[in-house]
């Protein structure tokens, strides 16, 4: 299956965030909010980490 790394990260983040939202919060509004925040942290953190490693050794 030909995924890019970014697609894999987004899919991982999506599924993990859905379950985190359901299990770690109560009430639909809180669950949605937590799921969205978790998704943003997953994807944003991975991209930031990637850039950090790139800047450590750009060549």
């Amino acid at each position, binding site marked *: *299956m030909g995924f890019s790394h970014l697609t894999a990260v987004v899919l*991982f983040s999506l*599924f993990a965030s859905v*379950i985190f939202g*359901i*299990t770690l919060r*109560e*009430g639909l509004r809180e669950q949605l909010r937590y799921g969205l925040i978790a998704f943003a942290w997953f994807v944003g953190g991975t991209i930031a980490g990637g850039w950090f490693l790139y800047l450590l050794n750009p060549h």
Partner: protein
Amino acid sequence: MSQPVANAKPSQPTSRSAAAGAWWVLLLGWLLPGIGYFVARKWVRGSLVLVSVVGMFGLGLAMRGRVFGFNTSNILDMLGWIGDLCAGALYFLTRLVGAGAGNPYSVLGDYGTNFLIAAGLLNLLAAADARDVVLGRKR
């Protein structure tokens, strides 16, 4: 004059039996992703967990991830095996049909292995949460 408050003792056997029954929810939820929520009549949550865990596990296999077997000689393999085992029936089915051999030469294969382990761990988290819902500890 105030009415006597209901004694807590008679309710103990009931709550104990409810807690014992809820272990079955945990077991069912582990074996079949999302079933624990269906028992609690939380259809949307159950469907989302089912789609997420099965989707994650399926993508892991599609990316040629490795499903770990029981191997006591390597601690990382053991941890991977525990993670995979948490996926319940998906793990047993995969082992049964001989899939999940993995591809060590593919970067996506490594991603797939992590998808498989994460699917198992998230499944166990959801099963434990469904037990709490059935016990009334969580809405």
